[in-house]
């Protein structure tokens, strides 16, 4: 999925890009409203994160223009404007969500995942549309969630890609290169620390005992493996 981020503050824009990239999204960046609109018209965009107070064209105006052409593309406003009327205006213009600065990374991630679920409900996600099961963990790609009994685990796009990759290759050792190519993209510069950290964080959420993982097991010096026993 490709996300367009429009934010005039370079640091906030870069930070959002980083958050989205970690989540597994492809990103496009715009520094003002006019650039955002031009990018939207030129590129394929699955959803947008718009700041409101930008030079040239405001986020409200960008949203209004986009809604004239596309009533369905999800839009999240991320703004310092926190008055009630600001939120009302934003939602009236057709935005799907309104995040107020300063925001926490977890809050942004949760909101973006919620919007992504709505996107994915209408089409097949990167990891495939139907449920698959790894051990006793049911993964629902279109929901960006996994369930183990009553417990629900929120997943990122990248998490779903990773789990799908392991599901599709039961019993096989997947080396870091292959994992990066599939889950991070061919143009990504591999960094084994990035992968290890991501796997570590994912294990904390999906493994019953992260210190003794059953789903994603480490094969030292080679990569990672999913045994594949009991899946469907």
């Amino acid at each position, binding site marked *: 999925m490709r996300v367009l981020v429009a934010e005039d503050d370079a*640091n*906030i824009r870069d930070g959002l890009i980083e958050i989205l990239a970690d989540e597994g999204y492809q990103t496009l960046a715009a520094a003002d409203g006019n650039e955002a609109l031009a990018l939207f018209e030129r590129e394929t965009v699955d959803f947008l994160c718009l700041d409101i107070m930008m030079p040239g064209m405001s986020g409200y105006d960008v949203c209004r223009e986009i809604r004239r052409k596309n009533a369905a593309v999800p839009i999240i406003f991320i703004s310092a404007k926190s*008055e*009630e009327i600001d939120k009302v205006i934003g939602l009236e213009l057709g935005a799907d969500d309104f995040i107020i*600065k300063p*925001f926490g*990374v*977890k809050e942004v991630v949760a909101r973006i995942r919620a919007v992504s679920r709505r996107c994915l409900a209408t089409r097949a996600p990167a990891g495939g549309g139907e449920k698959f099961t790894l051990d006793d963990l049911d993964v629902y790609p279109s929901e960006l969630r996994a369930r183990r009994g009553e417990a629900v685990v929120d997943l990122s796009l990248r998490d779903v890609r990773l789990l799908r990759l392991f599901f599709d290759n039961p019993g096989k050792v997947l080396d870091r290169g292959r994992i990066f190519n599939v889950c991070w993209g061919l143009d990504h510069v591999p960094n084994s620390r990035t992968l290890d950290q991501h796997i570590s964080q994912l294990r904390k959420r999906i493994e019953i005992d992260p210190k003794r993982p059953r789903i994603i097991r480490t094969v030292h010096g080679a990569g990672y493996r999913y045994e594949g026993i009991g899946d469907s």
Partner: protein
Amino acid sequence: MRPRLLILLVLSVVAPIVVLALVGQKIVRDEERLVREEVDGLLAARLDDVAENVEAFMAARQRLLDAATTVGNVDAAALRERAREAPFVSQLFVRAPDGSLLYPSAAGSLTENEMAFLRRTEQLWTKADSFTLPREGAGGRQAPGHGWYASYWQNGLNLIYWRREVDGRVIGAEVDRVRLLADLIAALPRSNDQGRTRLVDARGAVAHQWGRYEPRAGEVPRVERSLQAPLHAWRLQYYISPRAADASAGQSAAYGVLIAVTAVALALTAAAVFIYRESTRAIRDAMQRVTFVNQVSHELKTPLTNIRMYAELLEREVDETSPKAVRHLAIIVSESQRLSRLIGNVLAFARQRRDALTLHPAPGCVDQIIADVLAQHGPSLEQLGIAVNLDLDAKATVAVDRDALSQIIGNLVSNVEKYAASGRRVGVRTSHAGDIVTVRVRDHGPGIPAADADEVFRPFSRLQSSVTEGVSGAGIGLSLARDLARLHGGDLVLAPCDSGACLTLTLRAPQVAT
């Protein structure tokens, strides 16, 4: 703009002006009528003067005719000679008491003039009462007298002056009308005034006129009057340009009214503008303050967003084997969150002052929200050595405004951190009964005196004590928390307790079907 005030002010300005204009219009019309009557009177007097001149002339002419008709014996030659000597006489005549005409007599020889006279005056000799005065009866011996006989001959007035003598004879003279008119015109006053005076005969033809003004065809004279007998069929008329007659009259009054109305309109408008500006000054000042608060808050939020976002991103990457880095980052994150709450408090306080604070309850779990807030405060609580005892029993999904509850709990926990850290522990207990959720936050610090139970909830209020001395704070946290609680259908009160402070929060939060 406030529409009602604006409408009221506009009406206050427009209504008096309309009334003043109507009154002024009536004054101008009355003034014009009075001046018109005055002008008409003056013009009528002017015509009276001319009529007096005409009467004086006719009186003088009558005297001349008296002399011309004083004869002894009837001698045709002598009478003809007398007529020739009097250029204002075209023919003399003498009638016998029995009505027969002694001169000019058809029995003798007649000149052409005399024959023409007889033809012109044929009717005169057949009527019995031609030479009687109005008050005399017809027939019988009549007393001496004189009079005029007017008739029309060939589109012109024919005047005959007659005298009845003691012996009953009537001696008369037919007036030469051309000479009469010429002499009359010569006797009329000459003036070159701005109007036009006309002497009009019985047919309506203008016998003579003078003055600068040229009346239009069909124009009605401003004033007119008839002359006295024997010229009673003639009229004097006076014409004048309407502008000249009425301009000065109504103009000065109209200008006066216009100036007065304009002056009043300007004064009322200035007063209305002043009143409006003064009445909205408070609103403008308040809006300026709000705009300033919002602008400053917005400027603070951008760098704060970066600090918090990058600190949290760094938290993901920091090596967990480096506890010092983890702790330092946790402090940065915690403090940036605290700064976020402070800015949120300021904005909410500003909105509350504007009565712009609104809540939006949505399905949520009170226990979860409280747990999230305590998690945010985790690092600071840990640093202060404050242990958290939880007794949470509000797990149902209810309609609750997450932001409001987070702000309330955040403010209460902040106060514990600032003023009750010495107690080393804080207890948070939740319960749910019907639509009411109750949250009790109990610390074991110095506590709040009962006498200050209301004071602590006042904005900008900070109790003066050794506990608060040196502790930073604006004094709006508890005030805002209680306002939010009341907006949520509940309250925040200081409950009595053995030690420390116990704040009880109640919220109206009906259960929501999931």
